[in-house]
């Protein structure tokens, strides 16, 4: 709301008589476009309420929030960084950071290479109907909810009824509690994520490959290069920039380890390896009603995330600028 208000103060100023020509022109411009500003108003209000007010609400990280007194009325924390020191000195801190970073990194590493390989295969596939079918089918899991995917993992991995455990026990081994053990939890997160987004992730690499100058391939063919050599010397170098770019951008959001997924898959027994910053914030803030501590950790995450994203964008621009 501040923004439209600002505009109005700007727009009322030029109205008095004998303004300079520039101001008059500015005013005329604004007036001519008033409809556009009117269109923007709902969106500006929405962003203010649901995006900027919560940022303001972060001041409860420095307060002892309680329900009856609200965000403004609650007393300031004593000392001001009470919740921060509490979090940094708690045993949770290292556990949450480790889990968040590890899960994120594993997803990044193990998710990226299969997607690139799949994109190359799509590009090399000479039978267009096969390519189309496989593309359609492999994008599909991306549109399923994490709840549905959790249901599917139960079907396969449950200790009692899961298909894979049936095969394992039939082979004479003991059933493995995939969904309930700290040993398997992260692998399950990473592999379900790969299942969901493998095909979808390949789209962007495929688009990049399709942008490579086809004369390069023709020339290589004339020179007698095999297709494997062409992949190695033309295709992969051709999308190197895109790969690096995406890698940088992903590192910018490394603190997002997949909140919804972890939330659906985890439970008390796997907190040790699966509890990430977001899930901890949710439990502390909304289940234990410790709003201030929850908001503090949220602020910690947002602040680091902000620096990382800005850094990543800067890096990406630098990298992109030197190539394109």
């Amino acid at each position, binding site marked *: 709301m501040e923004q439209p208000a600002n505009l109005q103060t700007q727009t009322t100023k030029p109205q008095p008589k004998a303004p300079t020509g520039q101001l008059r022109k500015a005013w005329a411009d604004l007036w001519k476009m008033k409809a556009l500003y009117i269109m923007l108003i709902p969106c500006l209000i929405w962003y203010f309420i649901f995006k900027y007010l919560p940022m303001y*609400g972060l001041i409860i990280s420095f307060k002892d929030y309680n329900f009856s007194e609200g965000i403004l009325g609650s007393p300031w924390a004593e000392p001001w960084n009470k919740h921060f020191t509490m979090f940094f000195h708690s045993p949770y801190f290292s556990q949450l950071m480790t889990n968040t970073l590890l899960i994120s990194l594993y997803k990044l590493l193990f998710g990226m290479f299969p997607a690139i390989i799949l994109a190359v295969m799509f590009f090399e596939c000479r039978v267009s109907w096969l390519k189309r079918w496989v593309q359609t089918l492999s994008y599909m899991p991306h549109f399923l909810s994490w709840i*549905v995917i959790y249901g599917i993992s139960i079907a396969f991995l449950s200790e009692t009824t899961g298909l894979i455990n049936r095969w394992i026990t039939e082979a004479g081994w003991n059933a493995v509690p995939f969904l309930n053990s700290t040993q398997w939890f992260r692998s399950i997160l990473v592999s379900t994520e790969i299942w969901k987004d493998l095909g979808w992730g390949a789209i962007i690499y495929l688009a990049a490959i399709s942008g490579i100058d086809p004369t390069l391939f023709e020339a290589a063919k004339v020179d007698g290069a095999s297709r494997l050599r062409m992949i190695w010397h033309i295709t992969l170098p051709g999308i190197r920039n895109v790969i690096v770019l995406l890698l940088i951008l992903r590192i910018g959001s490394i603190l997002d380890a997949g909140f919804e997924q972890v939330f659906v898959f985890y439970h008390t027994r796997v907190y040790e390896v699966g509890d990430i910053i977001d899930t901890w914030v949710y439990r502390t803030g909304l289940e234990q009603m410790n709003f201030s501590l929850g908001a503090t950790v949220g602020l910690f995450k947002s602040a680091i995330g902000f620096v990382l994203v800005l850094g990543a964008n800067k890096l990406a621009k630098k990298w992109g600028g030197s190539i394109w």
Partner: protein
Amino acid sequence: MVTSRSDNIFNAVIYVFLVLVAAAAVFPLLYVVSMSLTPYSEVVKNGGFIVIPRKISFEAYERIFGDPALGRSMLVTLIVTAVGTLVNMILTTLAAYPLSRKNLRGRTFFLLYIVFTMLFSGGLIPTYLIVQSLGMLNTLWALIVPGAIATFNVLILKSFFETLPEELFESARMDGAKEFRILWQVVIPLSMPSMMTVGLFYMVGHWNSFFSAVLYITDTNLYPLQVVIRNMLLLSQSSELQAEVTVPTAAMQMAAVIAGSLPIIAVYPFIQKHFTKGMLLGAVKG
């Protein structure tokens, strides 16, 4: 060609690999369907679930749809999806169109205003407190309004609007059309493909969403479908409380999973190309 032999091997490897990828995407769903159709007698006979049961029964579906909770949650999800997508589209279009006009004064500022929220956010707890203080807890509005605009989609739509030729606007204005009419009668009809893309993204998002309900809804009558499915999955994970044993619990769970994904799977093949396009548009701009 000299290389035709190695070429053939190469092709074969690729085809096999691609078929495996497709199978990996589809088989889990088919198995879930098969589980949901397995009657208890089959489970007893085979000592568990197998990929292709001899006998099938639809009892699991009858049972879960006999439970009023599931029907009600489907209705909730349908309402939220329909109303939510409409609200999404109106607000997103109204934001994207002015921002796409390059001669809009203050455009850089407005863009910064919305893009900044992608970089920094107040996070879960303060957002919850805002929604709470607006009195939206335990209303369907909490599932619609806080997520009414996705900045990413505004940017997708904006970049599409920017590709429309400037002469279009000039001639429309020459004919005396005002901005709202230009948007409604010129811009939107010409942008149907990308409007579809964005609308479908929102729609699938609403259908699949469960976390906003976990946050804001405690009234079980207002639970959306995904939350009810989740509760079914969690409940009988811990115990086999079902007294009657004609339908295995797992079959009922899987029937619920199918109920939660079938609408998407059913329409997906027809709308797939829109999604891919949206993904690329966003990627190029993002």
